[in-house]
């Protein structure tokens, strides 16, 4: 199926739009999907000042090594150098979450099979969740569940 946005490339997925309570599906190619995500992202930013840091400080926030700005990253999804992740790490988190529905790596590491820290953290949180549920502390359990979901990447 041809992308309904650019009408050029092959559609590989769809987006759902709700206009006046009516849900419609738009089939899109990966490029238009990325573009639409970015548009949605900046409209949220405009509407709610969600990344108010991005509009004022954000235009100034940049990697001291390669000079890539946070705005450039948010617009293109491209990062300039490994150091950007360190220096702008916290600020790019919402963008990463938006794309990956997760912010924590739990896969392999150069030193060993698995990223030990996050695996241990998940195990520890699951233990706490178990205890909170047993004690009927549902508020705490929900918080823990959300954190585990975030670490695992959106799914429990």
């Amino acid at each position, binding site marked *: 199926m041809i992308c309904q946005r650019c009408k050029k490339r092959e559609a590989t997925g769809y987006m759902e739009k709700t206009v006046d309570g009516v849900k419609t599906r738009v*089939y899109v190619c990966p490029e238009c999907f990325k573009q639409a995500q970015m548009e949605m992202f900046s409209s949220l930013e405009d509407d709610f000042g969600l990344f108010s840091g991005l509009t004022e400080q954000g235009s100034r926030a940049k990697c001291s090594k390669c000079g890539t700005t946070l705005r450039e990253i948010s617009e293109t999804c*491209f990062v300039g150098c490994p150091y950007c*992740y360190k220096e702008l790490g916290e600020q790019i988190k919402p963008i990463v979450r938006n794309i990956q529905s997760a912010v924590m790596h739990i896969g392999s590491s*150069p030193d060993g099979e698995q990223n030990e820290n996050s695996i241990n953290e998940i195990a520890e949180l699951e233990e706490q969740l178990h205890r909170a549920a047993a004690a009927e502390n549902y508020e705490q359990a929900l918080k823990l569940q959300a954190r585990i979901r975030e670490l695992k990447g959106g799914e429990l």
Partner: protein
Amino acid sequence: MERGIILSSRVRLARNIDGLPFKGINISPISAKAMEVLRTQGSYTVYPMTALSPLEQTRLVERHLISNELIDCGGLAIIRSDNKISIMIGEEDHIREQCILSGLQLKEAYGELKYIDKTLCDAMGFAYDQNYGYLTSCLTNVGTGMRASVMMFLPALTLTGSLNRCISGVTRLNMAVRGVYGEGSKAEGYVYQISNQKTLGITENDIVASVENVVNHIVESELRAREALMQSDPAGLKDRILRSYGILTNCYMITKSEFMELIAFVKLGIYYNILECSDPSELDDLIIDIQPASLCLKKGRRLDGGERDKVRASMCDVIKQTVNIKED
């Protein structure tokens, strides 16, 4: 049965050298170091894009050994002699390691790549962060840097119109369905690529398992669709299969898109036992060999469209030799 539906499995890992910007670097020292490591593990050849003719470059794309982006970036590929491993240097990321195997072998492909990845990482030091994992140029690859994809032949799902429903289901599971040559390409010959979208917050083994799971479901749907296709119009389908076989084995000229359409029906004919084939791998090789650049290089010179169509038709002799109409 599955072999005809699942064509190949590919695992790709995106890696970058720590401390270097993602763009505009000198790739020579990286490739020299990589070659030094790889040389001890097998027989590898270096293919600098700047030293290859456009035909040779396209031939590597047609064989899925490199991406079009690597050509645009003027990068370089290091390819193992069995064409199963290819290391692209200077694409979107400094290094992209890839293993491609036939059939459903994602686990095996990752297993093979894991060792190569470890030795390259030990020698060069990849950019890695405790929270974000392997650091990549694009945020869509960060974490594991892994893309696991499976190439599938899905004529019945396409012809019965069920593919869109299938794509919707697959995208909901964070997977992408693309044409045979990746992002933005068309699904020629009813061949599609299924791959994971998510690379962060998931382990490599879970990526492999989730893609395999989706692929197995698609195989079941395709088999059901093949049954439905045959039931809805058996005579019409048999006629289309035999006509396709007839044209392929008697044509004097044939375009690539017509060839891809007809060979799909020949393969369906083999599935339905209307045709019999002594060696199905010959057909898979033929599909690669008739692609424009591969075909020109086989002839040793650039051919225009009409000449290519004639050569392509003559290459269909392989079908005459390996495929026959099954007696009722």
